[in-house]
């Protein structure tokens, strides 16, 4: 953002210096004034519909009469003079609430929004108290909108924020406003599941209880009864900040936690609704070891408290070679202690070998190259975007939302230059029309954001990489160009992409591990480097699959296949698997070989194939039950905190490993801080981790920061069914947060924000009070600490030259490439019942011409053989898929255990074609 001169505005005749590119509502809220509003939203700006933010504006200091204006539609100009306290303005604001209340049902006691309702807050703020109308209220019919969002239309106050978010901001097209006058209706044309993967944000965007969290409803708890702590989403690699809420030992919901640099005001539905795996009845809650009965049957032997360590100790003492398998979904702390325990030579990163190499390549490029990894916010502000190989809408949904905003940057900038302020949302949209900034996307198959793109290319990963290399070469003569020709569709795009990127000031190149191709990752680097070298403030954004993929990548270790070798070659007989299902990472024979070690210890929270083969199983805490650090795709180390102490003998993985260390006479680690200090001291890559959040002994005026709101109810009786004596709250040596309502009640440092609340602001809108200016950074800076940064220009990596040959079809074979779905491709969230409802059934996507040659039609059962693994799948015809390529929706139920891309064969099981033909004849 360019540096804008400040201007002086007057509020109640007092001067304030503010930025002129904002509305007076922005300015007032940033200055800390309480001014009610509804239709305005800091991410969606002003439209002036609700008329709630009325203030009195005066021409100059002599004007005593003034006139009512909407603060949100009034520019903060030099000398702008307003009064919030003016009696006429005060009266009008109360009257606006009265109007809204004419039809509002006043059902706060039974409304899910009660206690965190923006409408409640604003009603109190304006002082409206008495009902003066005696007429019947208008009523509406509610709709079924799917498993995530509940609809209660009678509560609607018609602020239009839902449509403005869902349609304008997030690009949804299956939702809208219907009818007119006092009968306007917000919903869908007919009942049905909301299609947008951002639908859950309606819950936070809606100022009252029209759209509420349907999963919360199933185990409802008031906001003030939820115990909460800052957390980080575990369902992709972007590291969106969240606030999970707990009551009675179960997780009740996830809310967005504002981070100005990362997720801002929104998160995706995978992140919001994926949490219920934590509440699963199948959770592993006690340690056990397996013995075998007389008939060879497996017996689970629970290990009582006090028996675990002696058991482990005896295991470890008897071990002949211990190896550890790390995990991209476990915390840095756990991975570090595993590495420490096993020794660096015996630590294996828990990725598939392919992913291990890709993540390693990404890290080397981000640390050895000249180009920075942008934060999500910077992606949203980019003025040109080129996506190479990554279906971000499936692998990192919020990145898709950021791209959606980036696509508007350039046209919006032009409009702003011509004098329409950026905050005047509908005027800007009107002037922008359908203009889009440069955005190009090259993937294996069409994605959910293709419609935004100026140009798309769909092809095999090698051709995608060649497109990237060609673009880089077109931008910089120093970058190597691919030999031979590109597919026609790609060749045509090269000069256009190069030209549009060259015009941009802040282009961002996006790629990732999703395509499974090193060449694609390298091509993206070449494009970014070519832009950087031509003087652009370029960004290079790589998507990594899991919440701590980059953290694990930085931790290093050996490849998993080597671990298999170690077991096969009897160099190790004891394997510790940390929060991982090896069957997702290795082929089944390899996984079985690895787990055939004499002793397998699995530390995990839910049963899986690996757990079922382990000899000793230790229950691990899920994200909300533990404290630790994840490193996001931009290299941002972010701390997540234990929200509640889990039931049973569940421990954070790092604590189990600390016990292991102690058991083998190593030093025991008592706190997360201890682990971090050791890690930072030992591994320079993690030097910044302790700075990601304040240490456990941090206090404000000697006080801890409470996880429970000051109105938390039932504390003394919550355990009464177990014991009438009120227990001492659990101690937390790992953070400055307390498991109680006592403590510092003000604004904590940003990394420790457990909930957004301020006096008079019970709804999520309280976030305004936590920002240095509305929509900007949190006070004291946004949480997180960047661990990686670009190398200096001189020390930068050279261009990559390993350009793959053009993709060529092989007779009788298909190149099987991975496809991704918002719901289903990520395993943990798919275990959450509401999410699982939306997981597509397995299929194989084929080009219709290929399908024709195979004699297979839409939906027909086909057989895929890849790496000796068989899959029975329904055919899906997809014209966007290149010929000779087959799309395999990785991660859907049963669809794992192979490394893609890979060549495969497709067959049609006997009888299927005939059956299809017959039923076809029947129809005819």
């Amino acid at each position: 953002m360019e540096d804008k001169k400040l201007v002086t505005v007057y509020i109640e005749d007092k001067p304030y210096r503010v930025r002129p590119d904002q509305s007076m509502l922005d300015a007032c809220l940033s200055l800390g004034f309480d001014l009610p509003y509804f239709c305005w939203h800091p991410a969606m700006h002003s439209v002036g519909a609700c008329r709630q933010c009325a203030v009195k504006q005066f021409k100059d200091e002599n004007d005593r009469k003034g006139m009512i204006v909407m603060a949100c539609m009034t520019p903060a100009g030099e000398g702008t003079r307003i009064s919030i306290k003016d009696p006429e303005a005060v009266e009008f604001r109360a009257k606006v609430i009265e109007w809204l209340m004419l039809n509002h049902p006043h059902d706060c006691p039974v409304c899910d929004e009660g206690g965190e309702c923006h409408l409640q807050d604003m009603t109190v703020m304006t002082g409206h108290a008495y009902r003066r109308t005696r007429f019947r209220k208008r009523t509406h019919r509610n709709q079924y909108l799917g498993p995530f969002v509940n609809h209660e239309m009678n509560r609607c106050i018609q602020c239009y924020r839902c449509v403005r978010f869902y349609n304008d901001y997030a690009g949804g097209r299956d939702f809208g406003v219907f009818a007119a006058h006092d009968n306007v209706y917000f919903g869908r044309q007919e009942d049905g599941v909301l299609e947008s993967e951002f639908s859950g944000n309606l819950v936070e965007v809606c100022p009252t209880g029209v759209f509420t969290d349907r999963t919360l409803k199933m185990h409802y708890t008031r906001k003030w009864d939820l115990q909460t702590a800052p957390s980080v989403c575990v369902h992709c690699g972007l590291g969106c900040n969240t606030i999970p809420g707990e009551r009675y030992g179960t997780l009740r919901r996830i809310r967005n936690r504002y981070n100005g640099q990362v997720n801002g005001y929104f998160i995706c539905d995978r992140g919001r609704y994926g949490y219920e795996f934590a509440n699963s009845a199948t959770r592993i809650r006690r340690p056990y070891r397996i013995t075998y009965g007389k008939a060879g049957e497996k017996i689970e032997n629970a290990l009582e408290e006090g028996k675990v360590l002696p058991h482990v100790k005896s295991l470890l003492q008897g071990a002949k070679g211990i190896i550890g398998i790390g995990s991209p979904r476990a915390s840095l702390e756990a991975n570090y202690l595993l590495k420490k325990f096993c020794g660096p030579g015996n630590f294996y990163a828990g990725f598939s070998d392919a992913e291990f190499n890709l993540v390693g390549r990404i890290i080397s490029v981000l640390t050895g190259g000249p180009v920075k990894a942008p934060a999500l916010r910077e992606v949203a502000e980019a003025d040109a975007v080129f996506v190479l190989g990554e279906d971000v809408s499936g692998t990192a949904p919020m990145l898709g939302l950021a791209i959606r905003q980036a696509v508007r940057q350039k046209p919006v900038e032009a409009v702003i230059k011509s004098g329409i302020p950026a905050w005047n949302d509908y005027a800007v949209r009107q002037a922008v029309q359908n203009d889009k900034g440069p955005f190009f996307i090259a993937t294996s198959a069409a994605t959910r954001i293709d419609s935004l793109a100026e140009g798309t290319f769909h092809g095999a990963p090698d051709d995608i990489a060649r497109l990237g290399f060609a673009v880089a070469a077109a931008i910089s003569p120093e970058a190597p160009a691919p030999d031979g020709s590109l597919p026609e569709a790609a060749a045509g795009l090269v000069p256009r992409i190069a030209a549009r990127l060259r015009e941009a000031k802040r282009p961002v190149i996006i790629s990732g591990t999703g395509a499974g191709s090193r060449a694609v990752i390298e091509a993206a680097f070449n494009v970014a480097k070519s832009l950087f070298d031509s003087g652009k403030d370029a960004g290079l954004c790589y998507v990594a699959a899991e919440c701590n993929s980059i953290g694990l990548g930085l931790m290093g270790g050996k490849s998993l296949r080597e671990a298999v070798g170690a077991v096969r070659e009897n160099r190790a007989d004891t394997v510790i698997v940390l929060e991982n299902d090896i069957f997702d990472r290795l082929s089944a024979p390899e996984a079985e070989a690895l787990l055939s070690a004499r002793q397998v210890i699995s530390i995990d929270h839910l049963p899986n194939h690996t757990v079922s083969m382990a000899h000793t199983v230790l229950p691990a805490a899920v994200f909300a039950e533990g404290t630790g650090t994840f490193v996001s795709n931009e290299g941002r180390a972010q701390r997540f905190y234990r929200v509640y102490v889990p039931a049973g003998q569940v421990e954070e993985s790092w604590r189990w490993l600390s016990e292991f260390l102690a058991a083998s006479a190593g030093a025991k680690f008592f706190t997360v801080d201890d682990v971090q200090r050791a890690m930072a001291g030992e591994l320079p890559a993690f030097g910044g981790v302790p700075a990601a959040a304040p240490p456990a002994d941090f206090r404000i005026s000697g006080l801890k920061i409470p996880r429970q709101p000051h109105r938390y109810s039932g504390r003394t009786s919550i355990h009464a069914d177990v014991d009438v004596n009120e227990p001492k709250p659990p101690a937390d040596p790992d953070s400055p947060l307390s498991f109680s309502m006592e403590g510092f009640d003000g604004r904590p440092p940003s990394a420790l924000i457990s909930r957004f609340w301020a006096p008079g602001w019970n709804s999520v809108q309280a976030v305004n009070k936590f920002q240095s200016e509305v929509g900007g950074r949190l006070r004291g800076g946004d949480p997180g600490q960047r661990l990686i940064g670009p190398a200096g220009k001189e020390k930068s990596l050279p261009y990559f030259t390993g350009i793959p040959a053009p993709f060529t079809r092989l007779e009788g074979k298909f190149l099987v490439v991975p496809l991704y779905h918002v719901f289903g491709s990520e395993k943990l969230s798919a275990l959450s019942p509401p999410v699982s409802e939306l997981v597509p059934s397995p299929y194989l996507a084929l080009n219709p011409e290929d399908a024709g040659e195979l004699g297979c039609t839409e939906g027909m059962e086909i057989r895929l053989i890849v790496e000796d693994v068989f899959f029975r799948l329904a055919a899906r015809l997809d014209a966007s898929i290149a010929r000779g390529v087959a799309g395999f929706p990785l991660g859907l139920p049963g669809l794992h255990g192979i490394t893609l891309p890979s060549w495969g064969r497709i067959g049609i099981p006997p009888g299927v074609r005939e059956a299809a033909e017959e039923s076809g004849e029947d129809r005819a």
Partner: protein
Amino acid sequence: MSNAERPLTGDFRADGRPLGIGEYEKTGGYLALRRALKEMSPAGVMDEVKDSRLRGRGGAGFPTGSKWSFVPSGADVFSSGPKFIVANADEMEPGTFKDRILMENNPHMLIEGMLLGAYATGADCAYIFVRGEYFGSARAIGKAVAEAYGKNYLGKNILGSGFNLEMHLHMSAGRYMCGEETGLLNSLEGKRAIPRTKPPYPQVSGFMGRPTVVNNVETLCNVPHIIRNGAEWFRGLSRGFSGDGGTKIYGASGRVKRPGAWELPIGTTAREILEEHAGGMRDGFRFRGLLPGGASTEFLLEEHLDVRMDFDSVQKVGSRMGTGTMIILDDRTCPVGMQLSLQKFFARESCGWCTPCREGLSWVVHMLGAIEEGQGEMEDIDLLLEQARLLAPGHTFCALAPGAAEPLGSGVKYFRQDFERHIREKHCPWKIKNS
């Protein structure tokens, strides 16, 4: 009065059928266009219109020439690319029917006016936005547009001048809000007719985000005459008591002897219109009040009848000239019932965008309905007045609700005894009398 004194209506055919292109040309039609294209620069046309003191006939009375002059002609984003001119033929203001008369009788006059407006502002595309119920107007206009294309008054390189204009007819589908110029533009784009913020004004960012002039039909129909006969002539047409130039189509509806519309010099008094042209009240009916210019203007009483019907004079007595078509209230019509009818209209036609209008008007309708049914309470009267005060310009997003507040506030004020009587007697006195 001679045709020269009634430029808008003087040439109408006696049988009420629209003038064909030949007939229109015979009355001097398209001469102004020829003259402008040959002899005048766009700025010259604009200056002539400015000079004429033509003020918008859509209700707000904004000077037409200055409205045009806000269309950018510099080098920024908005200056390059297409520009538009739109005729507002939505005419849904209750009591108003003047634009229909113009379109049904002399459609070419509107087309020529738009051509001149387009030439002056640099527009190359024109839309005529006709309300959905005006089938007669649409037929007349559709035919006239085709004729004009046939004679190269429309299309490419008009009359060899190098000037181009495409013209389309858009039939609407109801909603008063479509008449509000920014709501109209949304509707023309196939969207819900909610209004847009101003600024930016449509002249800068209008139809499809491009510079757009929206003018009322009657406004545009005046333009050919101004260009043909000169600004001075036009100024002379009015009674000259205010700065306004030209004639105005005044109208009267209600229980007058001869409801209708008449083209008269601007500044004719309300009394003259009522008594001379409308023939006074029907036998057996007494005058109680009137809305001077459509439903969204304040009531005037007997004592105001000598007001000159020009923009400023009507304002001075506390109302607005609006569309200049008056609605008469007689003594045998219930003023509460009339108010209910008015407010039902406004409440129903509210677009539902802003709170005061969407909620306030529907509350007003509930209260008026209760009073009319004999279920009113005395506090309702103050509440009604309060709502009228709160629905003020600037409080709402557009002028619809303030328009509703005008007859509401003035009606309750002037006919308060009637409201109180309803409440006291718990029924509508008029209903009893009639049944």
